[in-house]
């Protein structure tokens, strides 16, 4: 199954199919994985947090919706929302087209980066995790 889904090396992953990417300045980009976007299919609506909102580790910071389904967006790291991808408001399909690129969700200033990263999976572990997903 897992070969059907792209997993990018160098990112950190949650069991709920979010990713976190640590940038050079220490901030963290967050988004959903290829698997998550394929499960939702045709994302038609994205609800973003406000800049300045605080995020808990795996706390809900927004939502992604397809015609049929609603999926919470959980933050893989705790911290403060620095920036949101406002392009998704008009073009939610970017999450489908480029889940690790143009479809990023928000940028977070982490409050306990090392602690949170220790709880996340690397790409190899996430690939294994995908194999265990039914469907």
């Amino acid at each position, binding site marked *: 199954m897992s070969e059907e889904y792209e997993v990018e090396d160098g990112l950190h992953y949650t069991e709920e199919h979010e990713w976190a990417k640590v940038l050079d300045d220490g901030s963290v980009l967050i988004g959903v994985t290829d698997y998550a976007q394929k499960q939702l*299919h*045709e994302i*038609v*609506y994205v609800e973003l947090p406000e800049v300045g909102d605080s995020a808990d580790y795996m706390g809900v910071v927004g939502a992604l*919706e397809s*015609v*049929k389904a*609603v999926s919470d967006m959980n933050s893989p790291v705790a911290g403060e929302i620095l920036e949101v991808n406002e392009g998704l408001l008009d073009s939610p399909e970017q999450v489908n087209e480029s889940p690790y690129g143009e479809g990023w969700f928000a940028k977070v200033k982490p409050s306990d980066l090392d602690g949170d990263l220790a709880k996340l999976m690397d790409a190899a572990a996430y690939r294994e995790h995908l194999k265990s997903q039914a469907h």
Partner: protein
Amino acid sequence: MDLRKTHIYDYHVKHGNIVDFGGFAMPVWYDGIIAEHNAVRDAVGIFDTSHMGRSMAEGPDTERFLNRVISNDLSKLGPMGGLYSVMCTPEGGVVDDLILYKLRDDKYFIVYNAGTREKDFAWFTKHSEGYDVELKDLSDNMAMMAVQGPKAVETVNAVTEEDVTAVERFNIAEVTLDGLPCFVTRTGYTGEDGFEVYVKDCPLASPEKGLKAWNALVDAGAKPCGLGSRDSLRLEAGLNLSGQDIHEGTNPLEAKLRWVIKFKKEGGFIGMEAIQAAREAGIKRVQVGVAMVGRGIPRHDYEIWDGEGAGKIGVVTSGGLAPSLGYGIALGYVPREHSKLDTKVMIKIRSRLAEGKIVKSHPFYDDSVYGWKRVK
């Protein structure tokens, strides 16, 4: 638990994305919900509806029996005509909605919902006591599919020996489709023109005839559509989903179903007294359509608040993005004083209140742009 399969399962498993729909393995989409939705609005799509219930009632008391069970009145129905109705509990709640087709005075074909299939047949059986009528559940012996959209007539005509153009809305006809004896009815659940096709003598254990009819219609141009677009299409058309928008806790007068309640028909019907009593006491909540003004998609079970955001006034029973309209829409119930067109309401979406307004919901779209009325 193993999911129940329909006659068309072999096609779904090869081409579609299967989900558990009330215990049935059904395709939610093949190519994508929006593409399938648009195919039905713009051209023609085909849905497997073999999970639905269909029965035959036959015998001298058939019409008298059915007219007692349903709220609408069969007595004025001509041969090969169909009638939409609900059937109610003695307390006046909706057991299910259904369509009854008169093949002869003493023989009716009945089509009802998948989720209530067993309950409905048991209900018919229980209430047939004392009437000379024989009931047969044909659901597993007949494949069923819906061909829907402005090009449905030409698509069905391409594979039937008979010309179906003259079959009137809600009427039933016998046809030979790709060599197979079938019923067709000029009905559907999308708001568009179209037919429901019933492939006779097609047992679930050997569904070849059903698959043959399905493939012939697909080859004639009908795009296979899953339950995702079936739901977005019926919601845009403002059609109730039984078990969700109407159920045993719903009085049909709350659900804009006054037109199928015949208080004066001979012999009355089950639930009539309770519905009449509720009417005399005053119907306090009513079904409304809501269109979103602000961002956000209303969903089943979201709260409806008053326009000032002071508090909850009702609940969304069906909601979603309307692909043909480009905004979120919902069916729900609110107190009568909040039901006037253009009244501002709020929908509670997660932790925030998003603005909506009461709109015409049957259908939500402009029926000179979409839907069966524009065809012809």
